[in-house]
Every structure is written in C-alpha cells, then in structure tokens.
C-alpha cells in the first residue's frame, strides 16, 4: 500500500516562541503501525494535522510512496483520521456515515451498500445500518468511525487517541479490534497516544516524542528492555538512574561525563539484609497493586521506585531496608 516518509518537518504556530515540531523525521513502512507516544503538547496531534493538510508545515516534506503530498489538496491525500470523539455526522444513519466517503467520491449506491455491509461485518457490528449515531455506545461509535475511515481504502490511517475516552474494558476490546483490522487490511497506520501500555500493545514500532522532537524510535520490546537514553528510559517507566559508580544512586541525569546506568523498577529488589549490590534506604511509601507491590525507598537522598511482584515481603512505612540493584539488570544509557 503506502510507505510514508517524513523529513525534517518543522512547524511553529503564530504567537508561540518554540516550534511544536522541530526537524521531525520518521518513516513508516508499508502496512506498519507506528505509535507516537508523548505527553500533551509534544506535537503529536500537530503532526497528524500536517499529514492530513489541515495545517501547513514551515519546512520539511511529507511523502507517500516517494511523492511529496504537500501540494496535494487535503481531500485528495487519502489520509483518514480518527479522533478521540467519533465525530459521526449526527444527521446521518450509520449506513450513510460509513458510506459518506464513497458517496462524495461518486460511488454507486449498490457499491456503497455492499461496502458498508462488509465494513460492518469487519467491525463486528452487523445489522446496525439504520441506527443513528446518538443510539450508539462510545465503543460502538468508535468502531463505526473506524469503518467510515477505512471504507475508502485509504493510503494512511491516522489515529489520534481514539480510545482515551472509553472505559477500560471497552478500550481493551477495541485495541484488539483495531489491531486485527489494521493487520487484516494491511493499512499503514500512525497512532497517537499518551498511554505507554496502549502504544506497546498496538504498535510494530514506537516513536517517543518530547517537545516536538523524537527521542527514540524502535520496536516496543527493544525500547522497553534497553532504552538508549535517559529521556527514552523515562518514557518507558524507568525512574532510577545510577551514575559513574553503578551503586551511586541519583534521580536526575548527571551532567558530567560519567557513565549513567538505568534499571527497570521491577528489577530492583527491596530486602531486609544488605549484600554486595545493595544500598541502605528507608521505605517512604508502599502501595499494594494486586499483582505487585510498589515501594518508594529513600536512598542517599534520592527516591527509588521498586516493583516487587507477588508474593513479596512487606515492609511498613519508615522501615530500614536494603535496595539491591542486580548488576546484570543494569544497562548504560546516554545522558
């Protein structure tokens, strides 16, 4: 289908000093789903607006299959959008909503009816043609919105936090549904989210975005286990960094040329006895989460977050403990 290449894209909004996107480059392979993970204000949604043509970039280029689309009108680009809200047209039935794209492109009514039926089967909601958007639940609305986006056989599917307004159970169902449909149709997809779990569960590759710049791009497993920089590690839920001497704990990235090591919270052990790879500390918080216990331990004035999967020893608040950093679990990150 489509390979998307974004090169050196920069965008600054008027009356704003800093650019929302700075020299942004990313390529998405044919049929691949790439998640853009970043906090609000990191430029994720702006990127989608630039791709659809709602906004224009200051510089840089966006190419579909090697051809620049910047001069192509938004309605000719073949990039469809799905937002947090379904934005189904309230005055049309489900059938007419899904058929909208085909209709404006001049398809015959038989084609539209057949395609709508095919899409409704695909999203697992057959037989709801005559319903109105107001009669659909949040999850159903998003499924219909997905069908409406995909029925036109788009080159690129853009998902802008499509699940963040849904209940957990519906969200998990829909994550699976979107992933399966995307794989089945093989449509190239860019998926914007601020939820790490969602990004990891759904994407082939993840791009971590901070202040308009890409911090890291890689497969979810690789980013999870071995993020290459402090910023990337923070995105992936790592909050403990050790500088220079691996057993000298600190919370902030150090500015000297010393090496920095990171460790995932679930690899840190909290125990009552000291050993070679441990440091003494005081338990400052302890939260029971079911599958694991989360400890905050004050070590050398810094706070270390540790996740101990159950069954785990329990230490009360204020207990004197030792925090163990298994050497084989430490990895070096660029500061």
């Amino acid at each position, binding site marked *: 289908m489509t390979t998307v290449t974004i090169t050196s894209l920069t965008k600054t909004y008027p009356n704003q000093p800093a650019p929302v996107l700075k020299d942004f480059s990313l390529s998405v392979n044919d049929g691949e789903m790439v998640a853009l993970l970043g906090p609000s204000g990191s430029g994720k949604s702006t990127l989608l607006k630039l791709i*659809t*043509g709602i906004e224009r970039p200051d510089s840089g280029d966006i190419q579909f299959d090697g051809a620049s689309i910047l001069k192509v009108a938004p*309605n000719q680009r073949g990039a469809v*959008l799905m937002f947090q809200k379904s934005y189904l047209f309230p*005055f049309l039935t489900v059938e007419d909503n899904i058929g*909208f*794209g085909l209709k*404006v*492109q001049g398809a015959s009514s038989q084609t539209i009816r057949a395609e709508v039926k095919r899409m409704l089967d695909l999203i697992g909601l057959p037989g709801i043609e005559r319903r109105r958007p107001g009669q659909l639940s949040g999850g159903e609305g998003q499924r219909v919105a997905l069908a409406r986006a995909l029925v036109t056989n788009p080159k690129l599917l853009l998902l802008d936090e499509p699940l963040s307004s849904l209940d957990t159970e519906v969200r998990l169902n829909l994550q699976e549904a979107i992933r399966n449909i995307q794989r089945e149709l093989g449509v190239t997809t860019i998926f914007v989210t601020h939820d790490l779990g969602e990004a990891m569960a759904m994407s082939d590759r993840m791009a971590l975005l901070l202040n308009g710049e890409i911090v890291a791009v890689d497969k979810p497993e690789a980013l999870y286990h071995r993020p290459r920089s402090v910023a990337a590690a923070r995105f992936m839920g790592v909050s403990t960094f050790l500088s220079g001497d691996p057993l000298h704990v600190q919370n902030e990235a150090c500015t000297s040329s010393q090496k920095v090591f990171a460790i995932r919270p679930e690899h840190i052990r909290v125990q009552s006895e000291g050993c070679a790879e441990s440091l003494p500390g005081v338990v400052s918080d302890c939260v029971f989460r079911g599958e694991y216990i989360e400890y905050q331990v004050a070590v050398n004035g810094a706070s270390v977050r540790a996740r101990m999967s159950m069954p785990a020893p329990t230490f009360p608040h204020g207990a004197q403990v030792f925090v163990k950093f298994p050497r084989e679990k430490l990895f070096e990150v660029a500061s």
Partner: protein
Amino acid sequence: MKRSITLVSRFVLYLILIAPLLLFVAYTFSTRWFFPQPFPTEWTTIAFQRAVNDSRTFSGIAQGLSIAVLVSGFSLLLGFPAARVLGLRKFRGRKLVWLFFFVPTVIPPLAFGMGLNILFLRIGLAGTIAGVVLAHIVPALPYTIFTLSSAFARFDENYEFQALALGASPWQVFRKVTLRMMAPSLVVAALFAFLISWSQYLLTLLIGGGRVITLPVLLFSAASGGNPSTIAALSLLFIAPPVLVIALTARQLNEHGNEIREQY
C-alpha cells in the same frame, strides 16, 4: 400544588398572548359594537372582505413578503461568514468587531434612516424595493450574526476535517456537513431577519418615500383613519405570516432550543 401553579401560570400566559388577537377577531368580524355591550351583536365579514379585496392590501402583502424574504436571504449571506469567524476564531479586536455589529440594535432607526435616505436619494435607491431591502438589512443583520455565531461557538470544526479527509471537496463539506449541522440555527436566524423586516414601518416609510407600500405602512395610515374594523382586519393579515412561519418552523426552533439546552 406545583403542578396547578404551572397550569395556572401557563393559562395566564396564553391569555395575555391570545386576548389581543381575540379582540382583533371580534373587531374584524363585527359591526357597530359600542360601549356598554360586552360582546358584538352583529357578526359580518364585510370589513374583512373589503380589506382583503383592496388591491393596496394585496400589493402591500406581496411587497412586504418579497422584501422580508430578500432581507432574510441577504442577512444570512452576509451574516454567515461573519458569524463563523466570530464564533470559531479568537483574534485581536474581536470584541470591537462584535460591538460594531451590535451598533444597529442600539442606534435609533430614525438616526441612520435619515442618513441612508440622503445617500439613497443621491444614488437613486430611494423609493425602490432594493433601497428598502438594503435599509432593512441594517437592523436585521445583528440578529442573524448573533444567532449564527452562538451556533458556531458550539460547532466543532473536526466534523469538517473528517469530511475533508474522507475525500469531500470544500464545497461538498460546506453543503453536506456545515449547512446540515447549522440548519436549525439558520432557520432561526432567517426567521429573525424575516420578522424584523416584515414589521418594519419607519425605515420602509423613510426610504420607500411612499412608493414602497408594505402592510405596516397601510396599517399606520388605517390607524390614523380610525375605522376599527379595517385596523383589526389589517392587523390580522399582518400577524398571519409570522404565525404561519413560526408554526411551520416550530420543529427547528425546538431543535435550536435543545441544542442550547444541551450545553447546560
């Protein structure tokens, strides 16, 4: 208890609204109805027929209607883009523009009417329907702009972006999405403009200069003539189109109300 209070207040409200109409009906279809009699004694349709059959009445209605329709059409055309920008965009000087559009509702029509008349006399628009239409747009436009801009303030442009991304041309987006979503408010705005134009007396008289005669102009001259049956008959004819229009658009009015209610 609460229910009965609602019922009573509703009854009183209807009475206040309908009583003058009933009085008009009574005057129109009766003759020689003098003081001590509580109700008319002789019922007749002569006065009504005379008013309806008068060719001046017919042309008054026809001119008034066509002027009102033109005014509401042009007010929508002019007001729609302005309302869109006022409702959707934040820009420097927005309040000032707002105030500028609001001005016609506070300046007395006599003040700008005189000025317009002098201008229109010079450029040959005085005494023409076109001139009257232009003059009526002045007081009508603020109402269309405010109705539509409050609707645009609730409008989400993402609906348009969706349609655009699905391949609709800008014109298709406008027709199939924007207009459809704005329809209830457009009806209300058109209604406002229509009613303002239809009931306009002073500007019609000033700019029309006696050559453009609408129903209100006839009504005023009849009122100074003093035949209660004629006045009442003309008044009924004067009320009829607005009542009809409101009855026909009650659904849109209701939808507009619901839309506004949904926000709170």
